[in-house]
C-alpha cells in the first residue's frame, strides 16, 4: 500500500526526505496522503501550505499544489488562497513553534473566522530545525538547548487553544497510531469550517536525547502506553491525565464557514 501512496502522492525525485532517522514526521506525512486517498480528492485541487521548520518540509515532497511559506505565516497565506478560491481544498502543515509561537496569532484568528482550512500540527515539542530549543509545547521541566536547567514556561494545549478561539473541529493523533491519525485528518478535511489536528510526533535527535527518552522505538512505545482515548479521558481527573496524550476527536461545534458567508454577500450584487 505504501508504495502505491508514494507513486500517487509524492514527488519521488525528491525523496528520501531530510528528516532524521526515527523522526515521526515521515509517518505523519504518510497519514496525510492516506487521508487524501481515502477521501478521493482531486490532487489538482488540493493546496498544501506549510510554514518553516522540520514539519514544513513535507510540502516539497507531496505532489499537490504546495507552498512552503514564511515562519509562522502558513495559515495567513492559506487564508488568502481559501478566501480567493473556496473551491480549493486547503491543508496546512505546521510545527509546534511555527503554529503556536510565531504563528499563534494567525492560529487563533483562523479558528475564530471558521475558515474552511484543515490545520495539521506536527508537534515534536521542540524546535528541531534550529537544533533543539524549547517550544510552547515543551512540557514543564523538560530541557532544550535554550532551557538547559529545565523549561519554566507552561506548555500550550494546542487543540484547546484552537477550540477556545472558535475552531469547529479539534482532534489529536500520534505518530504511533497511524490508523487513528489518518482517520482524524480525514474527518478534519471533511469538516466544513476550521479544523485542527494536532499530531504528536517524536524528535529522538534533539528532544529525546536532551531529555533521556531513549531510542525512537522507546519514544513510540511511550506514545502507545500514554495515549488515552478522548471518551475515556472524560471520566478522568486532571491529575490522572497529567503527562498523558488525550487522543481522538476532542471537540466539534457548528458555525457558518467563512467563505460561504462571504459568497452570500457577493451573491447580493449578482443580478
Amino acid at each position: 500500500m505504501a508504495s502505491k501512496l508514494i507513486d500517487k502522492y509524492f514527488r519521488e525525485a525528491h525523496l528520501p526526505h531530510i528528516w532524521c532517522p526515527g523522526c515521526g514526521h515521515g509517518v505523519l506525512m504518510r497519514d496525510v496522503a492516506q487521508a487524501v486517498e481515502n477521501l478521493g480528492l482531486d490532487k489538482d485541487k488540493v493546496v498544501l501550505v506549510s510554514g518553516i521548520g522540520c514539519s514544513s518540509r513535507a510540502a516539497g515532497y507531496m505532489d499537490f499544489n504546495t507552498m512552503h511559506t514564511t515562519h509562522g505565516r502558513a495559515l495567513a497565506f492559506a487564508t488568502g488562497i481559501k478566501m480567493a478560491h473556496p473551491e480549493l481544498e486547503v491543508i496546512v502543515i505546521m510545527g509546534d513553534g511555527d503554529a503556536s509561537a510565531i504563528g499563534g496569532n494567525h492560529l487563533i484568528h483562523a479558528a475564530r473566522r471558521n475558515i474552511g482550512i484543515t490545520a495539521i500540527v506536527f508537534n515534536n515539542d521542540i524546535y528541531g530545525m534550529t537544533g533543539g530549543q524549547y517550544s510552547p509545547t515543551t512540557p514543564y521541566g523538560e530541557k532544550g538547548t535554550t532551557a538547559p536547567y529545565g523549561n519554566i514556561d507552561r506548555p500550550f494545549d494546542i487543540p484547546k487553544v484552537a477550540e477556545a478561539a472558535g475552531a469547529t473541529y479539534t482532534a489529536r493523533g500520534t505518530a504511533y497510531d497511524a490508523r487513528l491519525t489518518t482517520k482524524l485528518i480525514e474527518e478534519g478535511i471533511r469538516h466544513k469550517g476550521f479544523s485542527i489536528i494536532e499530531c504528536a510526533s517524536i524528535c529522538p535527535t534533539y528532544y529525546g536525547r536532551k531529555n533521556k527518552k531513549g531510542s525512537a522505538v522507546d519514544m513510540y512505545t511511550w506514545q502507545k502506553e500514554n495515549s488515552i482515548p478522548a471518551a475515556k479521558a472524560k471520566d478522568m481527573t486532571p491529575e490522572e491525565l497529567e503527562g498523558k496524550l488525550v487522543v481522538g476527536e476532542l471537540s466539534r461545534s457548528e458555525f457558518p464557514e467563512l467563505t460561504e458567508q462571504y459568497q452570500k454577500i457577493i451573491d447580493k450584487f449578482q443580478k
Partner: protein
Amino acid sequence: MKQVKLMQGNEACVEGALYAGCRFYAGYPITPSTEIAEGCAVRMPQVGGRFIQMEDEIASCAAAIGASAAGTKSMTATSGPGFSLKQENLGYACLTEVPFVLVDVQRAGPSTGLPTSPSQGDMMQAKWGTHGDHPIIAIAPSTVEECYKLCVRCFNLSEKYRTPVLFMMDEIVGHLRESVELPEDGELEVIDRAAPADPKNAGPAYACPNGELVPVMAPFGQGQRYNITGLIHTDDGFPTNSNDIADSQVRRLIRKIEENRDDIITYEEKDLEDADTCIVCYGGTARSVYSAVETLRAEGKKVGIFRPITVWPFPEKELEAISGKVKRIVVAEHNDGQILLEVQRVVKDNCKVDFIGKINGTVITPDEIVAKVKEA
C-alpha cells in the same frame, strides 16, 4: 462624454486596482491608508471579488500573496509601521515570483511618528527593507488621477514581470481630493500574467528557457502542481543548497528588472529645455514644486522639473543626461535626504546638488522651494 468624479487619492487607488482586475484585498487598519481597506470592503463583493480584514499587517501581506498564487490579482495597503511588518513576506514574493501590489501611504516616522502627517520617509526602505539582494519596482503618484492610473500600471508591471510592485503614495496624495477623468473600459491597457496553454502538461514552473527572464507558470488549482518556496529552488520549485543555482536565480531576478528598465521606468520632464536649475521631486512633494517653478519662471528664473514616476529602478540614465546640461540640481523630498543619495550617486560631479527636505510632518511649501532655489 467621459465621466469626471471628485475622488480622494486612496479612493482612486481602489478604483484603479479594480480596473486592473484586482479581485482580492487583505488589509489591516492603519492611518493614513485605511480608506483603501474601507473602499475595498465596499467595492470588492460588488464586482465578485473578496475582501478580508486580517489579524495583522504580516498576515495581510501573506494573504495577498496566497490569493495571487492561486491566480487572483491581489493588493494590500498600509503605512510606515505596517510597511516595516510586511517586509519579510515582500521578500518572499520577490524570490517566489508571485505578483501582487503593496501600497504604502507614507506618514511621518520613525516608529509611530506622526500618523496623520505626510512623509516620504520609506523610500529607501522600499528598496532595501526586505533582507537579501533583490530588485524592486516602486511607483510614486503625484495626483489623484495618478493614484488611479498608476495603480493600474503597478498591477500591469507586477503581472508582466511576476514581481511585487510597491505603490509609494504619501499622505498628501492619499487624502487629497481632486477631479479624476475616469478611464472607460478598454481605454487603459490591462496585462494579465502569462500562463502555459496546457498546465497539466507544462514543464517545471520556474524554468526560464532560451534566456527568458520571467517564468511562465499556471496558478494553483489548474493541474501543474508545483512547489513554491522562499528557499533558493530548482526549476520545479524544490529547495536546493546549490551555490550556482543561488547565484543564477538571484541574478536572474535582478536582471528581469534591470534589463527591462526602459519598459518599467516612466518620468516627467517639465520646463527643462532652457533650464539651468532642475528640481528633482516625486509623489506629493511635486505639487509644491510645480507651484514654485511657476513663480520662479514668472520672475525669469530658468528652472525645470525632473519627476521620477518610477522611483525604483531609479531613472539614472535620464537624470545623468540632465545633470550634464544644468548647473544645479535641487532635490526636494519629505525626508532627510533619501532619493538625494541616489541623485548624488548618479550626478557625481556633473553639477551641483542641493537639497530641501522636511521631517516635521508639515509639507514643504512653494515659498520654501522658491527660497531654496534663490539661494546661491
